[in-house]
């Protein structure tokens, strides 16, 4: 349990630090920016809304206060209010609008009918200021907006009154709550839409990168030589220099291979001549021994040349990871060997998955399989089996025959690189030495065992990456 947890932790850490995809990074960045922006926007919007709403309420209460003021009259130094006010909201007992009139000492002198059963502890302080807008609470804790206007009626200081109109804040609060809810819904869905659009936009933008990587896949699989020029200009610089690099590497490899080929031709043809001369000399009794020494040395030289040249030309390419379709390559090798060993009527059985790709360069894979297959063709009685399968991410290739096989105590020696290069059997050691060299440069392994067919099985393990 704890191990699984630790593994999960490690994976998350890995995701967060190193290998997170560019798109995920951009998404996370943009999403947190959007959330931060909205968090900042929220109080501002709310503040603006509540400000304008309170303004509206203040204006309404002021208008109601004006109604009270215009209804008030001074008779004999006493405030007189009519039975009925023009604004009937004051007159309904259950109405929300309350009206009060206080004298300059703060004593209540009149209240509207709607305020008959309200107990609001409000004491206006008469300061000669014209008007005030504030909030207060009644005994039951209900909150009210209060509009308080101070006025001297009939131009006399004795008739200074505070006209107060009130309205509970509950309506405002429920409205504000509704507004806030709506705001959250809209901002939330806005954020969601934004993220979706962002994801689509990034996907669209990253499609070009995807295409580059698809083209690289094709280059590696040998389906194309270079990347196309059909990319956005931000990437063109990159793809063009990659193309130049690919071209120059290919040219260099070709040049290298050609000059190695020329070198092979120019060294081995004279050796063939020497070989011929040696054979002629060997036919004469008095120079036979010297001729045999000479021929052995020629043989050795030619083997070394062949071996070193092949080795030099079959290194692993650094720039792209090549992948070769196994089946067509095997088919061409087998049809070549079928022709050479035509009289043997060899039956070749292939057990390959469809589209089996081998992570090697074409030439190297051809040398590798050619040498092993020729061995099998030479030694078999009439049956060869070639198999390929994936195992734990590795590719396992097997080449087996129904020939005599290799005794257990000799297997390790045969596998060891270059063992027979200077040995007794010229021409047989190079093949396996080259095979070993190629596998070494690709990090592969070679093993030799006993086949179910009765002969030897050469097994190759290649890491799939």
């Amino acid at each position: 349990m704890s191990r699984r947890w630790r593994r999960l932790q490690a994976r998350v850490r890995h995701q967060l630090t190193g290998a997170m995809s560019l798109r995920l990074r951009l998404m996370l960045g943009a999403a947190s920016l959007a959330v931060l922006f909205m968090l900042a926007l929220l109080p501002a919007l709310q503040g603006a809304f509540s400000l304008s709403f309170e303004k509206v309420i203040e204006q309404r209460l002021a208008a109601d206060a004006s109604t009270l003021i215009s209804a008030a009259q001074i008779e004999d130094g006493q405030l007189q209010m009519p039975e009925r006010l023009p604004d009937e909201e004051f007159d309904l007992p259950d109405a929300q609008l309350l009206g009060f009139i206080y004298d300059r000492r703060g004593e209540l002198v009149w209240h509207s009918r709607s305020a008959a059963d309200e107990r609001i502890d409000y004491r206006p302080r008469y300061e000669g200021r014209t008007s005030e807008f504030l909030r207060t609470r009644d005994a039951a804790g209900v909150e009210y907006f209060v509009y308080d206007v101070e006025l001297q009626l009939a131009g006399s200081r004795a008739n200074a009154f505070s006209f107060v109109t009130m309205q509970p804040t509950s309506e405002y609060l429920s409205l504000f709550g509704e507004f806030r809810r709506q705001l959250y819904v809209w901002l939330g869905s806005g954020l969601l839409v934004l993220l979706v659009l962002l994801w689509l936009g990034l996907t669209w933008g990253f499609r070009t990168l995807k295409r580059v990587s698809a083209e690289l896949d094709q280059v590696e699989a040998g389906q194309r030589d270079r990347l196309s020029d059909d990319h956005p200009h931000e990437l063109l610089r990159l793809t063009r220099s990659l193309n130049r690099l690919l071209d120059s590497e290919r040219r260099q490899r070709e040049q290298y291979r050609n000059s190695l080929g020329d070198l092979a031709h120019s060294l081995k043809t004279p050796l063939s001549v020497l070989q011929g001369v040696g054979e002629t000399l060997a036919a004469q009794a008095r120079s036979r021994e010297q001729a045999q020494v000479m021929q052995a040395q020629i043989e050795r030289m030619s083997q070394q040349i062949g071996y070193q040249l092949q080795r030099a030309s079959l290194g692993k390419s650094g720039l792209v990871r090549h992948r070769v379709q196994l089946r067509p390559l095997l088919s061409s090798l087998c049809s070549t060997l079928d022709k050479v060993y035509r009289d043997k009527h060899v039956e070749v059985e292939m057990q390959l998955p469809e589209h089996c790709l081998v992570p090697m360069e074409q030439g190297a894979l051809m040398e590798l399989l050619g040498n092993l297959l020729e061995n099998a063709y030479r030694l078999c009685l009439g049956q060869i089996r070639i198999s390929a399968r994936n195992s734990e991410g590795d590719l396992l290739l097997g080449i087996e025959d129904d020939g005599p096989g290799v005794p257990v105590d000799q297997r390790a020696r045969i596998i060891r690189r270059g063992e027979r290069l200077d040995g007794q059997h010229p021409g047989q050691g190079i093949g396996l030495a080259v095979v070993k060299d190629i596998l070494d440069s690709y990090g592969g392994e070679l093993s030799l065992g006993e086949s179910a067919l009765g002969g030897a099985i050469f097994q190759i393990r290649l890491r799939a990456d």
Partner: protein
Amino acid sequence: MKVLVVEDEALLRHHLQTRLGESGHIVDAVPNAEEALYQTHEFNHDLAVIDLGLPGISGLDLIRQLRSHGKTFPILILTARGNWQDKVEGLAAGADDYVVKPFQFEELEARLNALLRRSSGFTQATIEAGPLLLDLNRKQATTNGEPLALTAYEYRILEYLMRHQQQVVAKDRLMEQLYSGDEERDPNVIEVLVGRLRRKLEAQCAMKPIETVRGLGYLFTERCR
């Protein structure tokens, strides 16, 4: 047998010509593909040895051209690089076998003989027709186990006729078995040689396997195995 050797290195070419000649073949040796095309156009070869690394037209292209001209004789390629790409391409182009340079002549000869046997439909190293037995490796004929004394020319005529048993073989064809491209020819020599062959065969085992087809050539009538 008439063998074409295409090799640009003069010494090696000479060596091949000499050794193949010693083995009883008629050898046309040329240094490049152009001359090879001319030779194959003019004469009928039984076999060709072609170096892949020719100057000008490459060995591969030469093989392709020969095959596209309908030449069906077996071709053995000589390759200096000895890599599988070359071998696969060479055999795909139409060659039948390869030998990697440098080679021992015995190996080359064994491969050539195998190709010749295969091309005439005989997979053994001997051809048998009744009491007559031809050992293709030792270039010797025997009747009922007794050696038949033949000159090199007589042997070549007999081997060629037996390889092409029950086919009419033109005199010109037989002539090419005796002379390489640039040698002076005597048109009567075939008749003389065939006459001597007939007499020797009849004297030793009372066989009359060679018939004259008037105006066309000769026919080996006995079935060969």
